[in-house]
């Protein structure tokens, strides 16, 4: 589904290892479209799960990696790496733009902001304030990025801006394997904390009285979310709305709050939604590819507004 049309029969041939009638088709499928589809699946499910974890942890239906400023934190990490290299000279260049370097920088940025949000959230406890604090951290990081770009060369700024459009393509199999390993770690961790997640539905005091170690569970949730959001933002750019909107779609479709059902449901719906967004972004049969971030926001924003209008039906 891109600028080159390939018959479905040929696609199946290529995927099953047979030889295609055109060699270029094989390259397009195996080195461009397959990694891209896999990236969409990982990004969509990972962001959605991060959103679900945040909504349960903060017991706030409007929480999500983007609203709480975590994506901005990851952006800050990447900005420091790309733009900061001009400021601080060769120190960063050696770690450079290697896949691990980007992933670590973004994860650290995400972790930093999420920790800050949690520390302040513990002091205010009021859910509205938590959201406002998240937004404040978001604008704080973007202003730091503005300052950084002011001192950077146009080449570096261009590189950063393109990264911030978000893109599911451009990932080599090598990069994809780095991505998958971190993603897998996050997902395995998520399934280990289903029990505390369910008990959080009653609030922290009840969870504690049910034998849950609150601090440890919260730190694990924090770690998983920053790892997933961090690695996704590093490789695909800051993608908005998926993390906020998809968990609500899953909750509305499956009408449950049980994380045993909700986690896989959210992951699958997240993957499907991002695949569809990618399909739209490709503009089938045309030569253009729109930035994925524009598409998710275009469809995500109305969904969030619709949810807010029907406020009585939003669940943690």
């Amino acid at each position, binding site marked *: 589904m891109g600028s080159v049309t390939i018959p479905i029969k040929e696609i199946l041939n290529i995927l099953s290892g047979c030889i295609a009638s055109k060699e270029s088709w094989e390259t397009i499928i195996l080195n461009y479209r397959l990694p891209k589809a896999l990236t969409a699946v990982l990004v969509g499910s990972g962001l959605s799960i991060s959103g679900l974890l945040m909504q349960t942890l903060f017991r706030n239906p409007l929480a999500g990696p983007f609203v709480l400023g975590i994506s901005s934190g990851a952006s800050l990490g990447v900005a420091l790496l790309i733009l900061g290299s001009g400021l601080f000279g060769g120190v960063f260049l050696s770690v450079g733009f290697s896949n691990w370097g980007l992933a670590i920088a973004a994860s650290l940025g995400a972790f930093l902001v999420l920790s800050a949000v949690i520390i302040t959230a513990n002091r205010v406890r009021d859910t509205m304030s938590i959201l406002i604090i998240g937004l404040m951290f978001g604008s704080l990081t973007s202003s730091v990025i503005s300052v950084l770009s002011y001192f950077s060369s146009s080449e570096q700024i261009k590189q950063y801006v393109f990264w911030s459009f978000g893109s599911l393509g451009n990932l080599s199999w090598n990069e994809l394997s780095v991505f998958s390993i971190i993603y897998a770690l996050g997902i395995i961790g998520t*399934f280990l904390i289903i029990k505390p997640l369910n008990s959080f*539905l009653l609030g922290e*005091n009840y969870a504690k*009285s*049910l034998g849950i170690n609150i601090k440890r569970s919260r730190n694990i949730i924090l770690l998983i979310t920053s790892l997933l959001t961090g690695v996704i933002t590093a490789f695909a750019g800051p993608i908005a709305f998926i993390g906020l909107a998809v968990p609500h779609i899953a909750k509305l479709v499956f009408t449950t*709050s*049980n994380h045993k059902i909700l986690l896989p449901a959210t992951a699958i719906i997240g993957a499907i939604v991002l695949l569809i967004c990618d399909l739209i972004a490709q503009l089938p049969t045309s030569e253009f590819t729109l930035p994925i971030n524009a598409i998710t926001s275009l469809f995500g924003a109305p969904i969030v507004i619709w949810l807010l209008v029907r406020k009585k039906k939003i669940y943690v």
Partner: protein
Amino acid sequence: MSNFKKHIVLKTENLSVGYQQKKQDKVVAKNINVSIEKGKFVALLGKNGVGKSTLLRTLSKVQKPISGSVYINKKKLSTYTNQELATLLSLVLTERLPVSQLTVFELIALGRQPYTNWIDTLSEKDIEKIHWAIQLTEIEHLKDRRFYELSDGQLQRVLIARALAQDTEIIILDEPTAHLDIHHTFKVFSLLKNLVETTGKTIVISTHEVNLAIQLADEFILLSDDDTVYNGTSEELINQDAFSTLFPKELISFNKNLQQFIINKI
């Protein structure tokens, strides 16, 4: 000497409760020396702001004591892990539950978490216990409803069922009748009284329903206006003139003959 025959499940020694702050701890209630016997229905009385909730939260390890210690089955509370304590003591709190799509059955099933495996699978025994709790609290007709659809009185019984499903020796309830009308208040009291008699559990509640508590509770902990802490049966407390220290005497006073608080003639 009579203490030898009693089975004390919960005991405090020179306990002070309150909030730890950076400069100076804020002590809400102090010199608390009480002991609670197994299988009793205990009412914690005291006027607003005297530290009832804080005391209950400290007894259940939700918050730390300022000084002194709490013992459960002769073992210091601070040496229990959350997991161990979860099989000994369950809670019904006043705080509102976050809005989720949990059904009544799922909410009660969460009470089985201390016993379930890592992925929270309910065993046959778990399901048996849940149904037992549902039966005792008479909420069979509610079990498939979402909890947010329930009235305050229904929700209170569901929360009690959740605590029962947790199958603990001690159940602590913070103002379980706070938002209830007189009919539902009585219903909750008689349910708790029945549970103590039929299951042998120890139940501690804080309440403002003083007159009802005097009729139904076995023992009392009374936090008085002048920082004295009374602990004993209603007769013992009446002999010590404890009830009349509960409130300032201008408006209401305790009538020893009726064993009730009455309104003074205005």
